[in-house]
């Protein structure tokens, strides 16, 4: 199996006669799109972040106002970076874990093109006319429908890969992949129908919106990211996960509690008591899957010396996973939520989940597959390594700053002697530092972008 050789040679004899494996190439194209959206989304959010620190920045330009940049940036990160990387991960890993591949990637390429185009037009629509104020539902209907159809076209392949698996047994990664495969359409259809197309009565909208926005991370991106980690670690080390017999409990507890823990944002809100209590309790019970996943991964990593780049990504990813859900559980604890629910700590949870956990895990899988398109060159490795460290430093620094600022902000907000606008002033230095963290994160994203696109260009100019 020589490096840089074509897919055909590499896969000869492994797949049914006459098949070539389109999946590494598919993953490369998906990663190229996803990494582009990561850079675009972060750039939009950073411009918005500059406006927080200096409100006059780009003041007179209507389509670059804060209220449009933030939804555009978040949608680019979730639907562009996270979801495209997740779809590619699902197809790639289900193929690898099942020992089968797709005969052709044509449908998936068409779907990718449609998805990118819909997202691009959708983001332009948000910037041109503004969003609807519903987190992650701001894209116009045509974009949501196109994305959903493109997803279905690819999910059919995902199902076929799972159904046609030739390797007996289903591994922990596959459980999470199949669960996520089912959750994305559930979330998108429910969210759009109940909140945008046929809005339900007002009081019920808030819990649905909290469930939807939480679910996009907890039920869609998080399971795929966990699957990537659970795939990378045993593959690199050639050992299975530690405490594997508990991982089934880990999976079911994760899926059960993750579906509810978005409701943790409703603690103290105008919802029946049981909803808020479920939100906190499930956020707290997320400690169970976090603990099991931590033991699963770190039990294998303990004492290892093979610290390859994907392995470092997986280790950092599982750390960010634990940090995200720990912080979310603390924030949902009713006495804490009463003070800090509307502070920058809530932003920190989202950043750690999306920027830390999802980006590191899915980025790790992309970098795990990329070397087969690169000759062993040091620049590619350096770019990958920079992506890892800049992401860890940038996201970690920004999260710490936002949490510290959020603590100050929370106490200031609850002090009747302090005017609300002053409670915001106290956070400014921390927001400025968090902005610097985001800039470092952007630099890391650009490294990933460059690495993926270098591999893509090399792949395109190398004749098969």
């Amino acid at each position, binding site marked *: 199996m020589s490096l840089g050789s074509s897919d055909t040679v590499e896969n000869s004899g492994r797949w049914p006669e006459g098949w070539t494996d389109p999946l590494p190439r598919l993953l490369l194209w998906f990663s190229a799109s996803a990494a582009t959206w990561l850079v675009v989304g972060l750039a939009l959010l950073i411009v918005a972040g500059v406006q927080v620190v200096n409100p006059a920045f780009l003041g007179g330009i209507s389509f670059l106002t804060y209220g449009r940049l933030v939804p555009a940036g978040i949608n680019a990160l979730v639907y562009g970076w996270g979801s495209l990387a997740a779809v590619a991960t699902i197809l790639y890993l289900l193929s690898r874990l099942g020992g089968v591949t797709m005969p052709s990637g044509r449908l998936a390429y068409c779907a990718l093109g449609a998805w990118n185009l819909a997202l691009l037009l959708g983001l332009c629509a948000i910037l041109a006319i503004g969003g609807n104020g519903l987190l992650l539902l701001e894209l116009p209907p045509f974009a949501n429908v196109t994305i959903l159809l493109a997803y279905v076209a690819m999910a059919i392949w995902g199902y076929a890969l799972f159904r046609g698996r030739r390797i007996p047994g289903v591994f922990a990664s596959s459980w999470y992949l199949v669960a996520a495969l089912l959750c994305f359409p559930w979330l998108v259809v429910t969210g759009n129908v109940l909140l945008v197309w046929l809005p339900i009565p007002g009081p019920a909208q808030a819990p649905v919106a909290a469930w939807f926005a939480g679910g996009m991370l907890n039920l869609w991106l998080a399971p795929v990211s966990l699957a990537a980690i659970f795939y990378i670690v045993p593959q690199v080390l050639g050992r299975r996960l530690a405490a594997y017999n508990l991982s089934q*409990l880990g999976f079911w507890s994760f899926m059960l509690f993750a579906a509810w823990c978005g409701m943790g944002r409703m603690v103290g*809100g105008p919802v*029946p*008591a049981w909803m808020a*209590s479920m939100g906190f309790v499930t956020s707290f019970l997320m400690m169970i899957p976090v603990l099991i996943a931590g033991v699963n991964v770190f039990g294998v990593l303990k004492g290892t010396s093979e610290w390859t780049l994907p392995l470092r990504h997986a280790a950092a990813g599982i750390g960010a996973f634990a940090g995200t859900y720990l912080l979310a559980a603390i924030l949902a604890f009713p006495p804490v939520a009463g003070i800090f629910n509307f502070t920058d700590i809530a932003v920190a949870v989202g950043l750690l989940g999306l920027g830390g956990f999802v980006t590191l895990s899915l980025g790790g899988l992309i970098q795990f597959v990329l070397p*087969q398109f690169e000759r062993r060159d040091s620049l590619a490795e350096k770019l990958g390594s920079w992506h890892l460290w800049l992401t860890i430093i940038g996201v970690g620094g920004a999260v710490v700053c936002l949490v510290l600022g959020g603590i100050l902000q929370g106490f200031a907000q*609850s002090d009747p002697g302090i005017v609300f606008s002053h409670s915001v002033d106290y956070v400014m230095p921390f927001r400025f530092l968090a902005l610097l963290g985001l800039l470092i994160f952007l630099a890391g994203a650009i490294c990933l972008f460059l690495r993926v696109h270098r591999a893509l260009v090399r792949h395109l100019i190398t004749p098969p």
Partner: protein
Amino acid sequence: MSDPQRDSTSPQEALDLVELHATAAREPVKLWLLGVIMAVMFVGGMFLWANSGGFSSSVYDPARLAAGKDNGAPKPAPDPRMLSRRLYMQNCGACHQPNGMGIPGTYPPLVGSEWVLGQEWHGDNHLVRVVLHGLQGPITVEGRSFNNVMTPWGGVLKDDQIAAILTYVRSEWGNSAPPISKEFVAQVREETRERRAAWTQKELQEIPRQVSPPPLPEPTPPPTSSPSPVQSPPAA
């Protein structure tokens, strides 16, 4: 550096994985982990049992419900000093600064200012006039001269608010001067009903000095000696 050969699972390697996982069932369960999991579930379950309101759609936040139940007891009055401080921060702090020091050369300080404390020729009536109608032209505060404009507040703030702010600035940051009553503010407002323009130091100096009578004891709110409990933050 990742090894690409490890990446593509050949059927043989995958079978090795299957073999590897076959041993998982024989692995002993980590008892400490099970113990922790059960403890977490127990705590979570107890919390849910105590706070779910029987999963009824008409039971809301128990803490809020309890607060609404005992309607008989009067709500604790907000600390008047807190409210005064808030009024000061909202209306005055931008120029005179939250610490009352002003900005040298631009906005005069309130800390130790003879205008605020009613020393020398300054009386409480002058202070109230300044707040009601503003001040302009050259003035001297603590031996330093300023030449700026203070906007009138008589149309924005009510008598009791002006009294609260003035009482606050006279007793904060080390200042200690007797309070200004809202009746006194009302009296000065009545005396200067015709006044439109901002005052000047020269005009004020010609008005004889008056001192605010001590405020009448308020009948309703309880004495502020006991600190009022911290207010719960507003809900969503």
